[in-house]
């Protein structure tokens, strides 16, 4: 770690930090775990969280931790969706499917055209990008039905974030779901049947997309 005369030290896990070969023994139990900075301070860090200790082979990978920059995906571990680990962070938040978000944001845009008396209120770029993205990915004709159907998976232990990922991905089969959401693999035996039923029910609710390859 570099330190100048005033004792300032660079953030330990910034993207451009020096390889942590000297730290690997300390970090071997945790891998290169860096948390999202809750306070939004300038020391934002690159998040290579190694599943907060759930990884049993992280000790093996400690020595390779220094080469993890840009190659974290080469780990063969089935890392759970980070959303599951950050439930406390967002316990007051409601996960939205892209189609639900599209409806809400479109509603706000419609209101803004009515309330545009104040010329200084301009919608930011991220609003338009968010609207465009959510509308492009709004794949269902009836969002409430999709929400109702997928919420039935909650009683089998599927969290809201995973439900949103499933809805947004529009999977064709349960294999696809388990491949895209590895955190559900541990419950494959319990989830296989309810997931098949849910996918069968929501399939007719998809919008027909003539441009897909």
């Amino acid at each position: 770690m570099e330190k100048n005369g005033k004792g300032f030290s660079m953030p330990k896990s910034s993207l451009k930090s020096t390889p942590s070969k000297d730290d690997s023994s300390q970090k071997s139990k945790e891998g290169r775990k860096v948390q999202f900075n809750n306070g939004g301070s300038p020391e934002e860090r690159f998040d290579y969280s190694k599943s907060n200790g759930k990884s049993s082979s992280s000790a093996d990978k400690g020595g390779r931790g220094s080469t993890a920059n840009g190659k974290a995906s080469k780990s063969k571990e089935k890392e759970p969706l980070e959303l599951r680990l950050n439930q406390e962070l967002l316990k007051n938040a409601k996960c939205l499917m892209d189609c639900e978000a599209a409806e809400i944001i479109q509603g706000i845009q419609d209101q803004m055209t009515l309330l545009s008396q104040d010329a200084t209120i301009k919608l930011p770029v991220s609003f338009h990008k968010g609207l465009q993205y959510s509308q492009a990915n709004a794949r269902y004709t009836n969002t409430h039905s999709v929400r109702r159907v997928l919420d039935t998976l909650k009683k089998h232990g599927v969290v809201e974030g995973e439900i949103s990922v499933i809805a947004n991905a529009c999977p064709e089969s349960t294999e696809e779901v388990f491949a895209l959401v590895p955190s559900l693999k541990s419950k494959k035996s319990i989830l296989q049947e309810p997931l098949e039923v849910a996918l069968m029910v929501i399939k007719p609710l998809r919008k027909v997309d003539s441009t897909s390859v």
Partner: protein
Amino acid sequence: MFFHIVLERNMQLHPRYFGRNLRDNLVSKLMKDVEGTCSGKHGFVVAITGIENVGKGLIRDGTGFVTFPVKYQCVVFRPFKGEILEAVVTMVNKMGFFAEAGPVQIFVSNHLISDDMEFQSGDMPNYTTFDGSIKIQKDSEVRLKIIGTRVDATEIFCIGTIKDDFLGVINDPTA
């Protein structure tokens, strides 16, 4: 992904805005200050959907400004590691390609692109399979997985991969 969340913020208002339209002025200022910003915890604030509560104002000593604690609901967009997103490619180079999903930029390194795809330079640089059947170029839609995120003051930047099962090109603009 998108979240609907309640946030709280202390808004400072100049006395010139006091009066009948105090609340409207407060809400306008909140929208100007908050919409479009990005934080490490909540991601991008895409839009404010409503005001839950405006607390009692507190006059700051030495100035005439008043601080109001405001609770508001908003739609935020925050990518998570492990999340599957569909993004639109914005730039392709030999190091990989950049894609955009909503307000978020994602970079996919060539190391995280399938081994059977090769970079082709030219007017329209792209990654193409050996048999030419699949191409990734500007405006292609790809499904990718986020494997890392970084937040700075105004934006979120992610690293993604398309090397896993069920990831890759969804829509080729030239098809």
